[in-house]
């Protein structure tokens, strides 16, 4: 265990824990957009920045990636970090003018308008890479990735085309913080729409009740990964013994 201070309050945390985790455990709120406990820290949105004083050295770091250390002093509300957060959200407001989630976060940070010209073709994607990281780190598929670089960057399937690798599990949809990825199940078909491409997948009807309950490809993937026979997986949760 290490002892350190956040906003003047002394707290204890496990070694190797991030400042953000320790703060959250102690009910100290630090805003984030690109953090999710199921994937590794990435440090892209910069909202979670805090000032850290270690000995004589003071620096501004992302609390999602910075590990706690004995004796450090963390300031989550310094003038500098407030400035960064407000500018970041103002930039994102202009990038995603239609996103309700961004507007709410902005409001929370005390920003109501943006001085920048809103992007006309702006979608809700903030390029936080949660979808691509979940697909790689949690699902183990890497069907989707961030392509191009800089201002041209986008989250897309290879060649913007249908991807063999996608098992239609929907993890990217659930993890997206701004609702930029949409999913719809209708008449035995699941459609996932990413900002720049979409793909349709067949759903499997439960062999007992006939309800379309899961994508075929996901069941095949689960069978292959777990070694369980595919037929056993083709029964929906409510029909399973």
């Amino acid at each position: 265990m290490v002892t350190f201070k956040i906003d003047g309050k002394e707290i204890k945390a496990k070694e190797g824990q991030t400042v953000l985790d320790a703060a959250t455990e102690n009910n100290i709120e630090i805003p984030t957009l690109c953090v999710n406990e199921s994937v590794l820290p990435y440090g892209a949105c910069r909202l979670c920045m805090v000032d850290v004083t270690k000995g004589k050295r003071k620096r501004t770091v992302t609390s999602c990636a910075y590990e706690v250390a004995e004796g450090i002093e963390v300031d989550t509300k310094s003038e500098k970090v407030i400035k960064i957060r407000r500018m970041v959200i103002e930039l994102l407001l202009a990038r995603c003018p239609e996103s309700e989630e961004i507007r709410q976060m902005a409001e929370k940070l005390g920003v109501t308008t943006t001085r920048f010209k809103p992007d006309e073709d702006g979608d809700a994607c903030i390029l936080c890479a949660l979808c691509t990281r979940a697909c790689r780190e949690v699902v183990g598929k890497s069907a989707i990735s961030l392509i191009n670089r800089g201002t041209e960057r986008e989250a897309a399937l290879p060649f913007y085309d249908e991807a063999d690798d996608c098992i239609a599990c929907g993890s990217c949809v659930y993890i997206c913080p701004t609702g930029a990825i949409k999913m719809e199940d209708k008449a035995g078909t699941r459609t996932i729409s990413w900002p720049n491409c979409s793909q349709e997948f067949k759903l499997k009807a439960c062999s007992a009740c006939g309800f379309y309950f899961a994508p075929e490809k996901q069941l095949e993937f689960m069978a292959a990964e777990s070694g369980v026979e595919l037929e056993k997986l083709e029964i929906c949760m409510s029909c399973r013994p």
Partner: protein
Amino acid sequence: MSELSAVKETISSILDRYDRDKSNLIAILQDVQAEYNYLPREAIAEVSQALDIPLSQVFSVATFFRAFSLKPRGRHSVHVCLGTACHVRGAASILQQMEKEMNVCCGDTTEDKKFTLEGVNCVGACALGPVVVVDGEYIGHVSVNKVKPLLENYD
């Protein structure tokens, strides 16, 4: 031999040069591009499969680095250096003139597939600025008025 198996064979020989080592992905793609003058989709898919790297990851790398092109390129590659030394000596006007003469935007290939025009962020030949590199040959002290005659040297 079918086109696809020809691609497989070419890729295979490139991969062998690098002991099929995943960490050489960028070098492998460079060699693929040198072979085809661009990165054909089938070749990217083949590299992904042979090295067991997800297609999306290979696609990310292929679209991140400027050296790679996913579109077929022209017979001659024209690189206009846009480094600072060339910029202060008027590189922007050279590029503008190139675009006018070729009737393409920077980054594109002419309709007759003769030229691919690209800007490059410094080729490190600053004393020659403004510099244009055509098919690897450095041409120094280019001026707006020299653009047309320069392009006429190529067929």
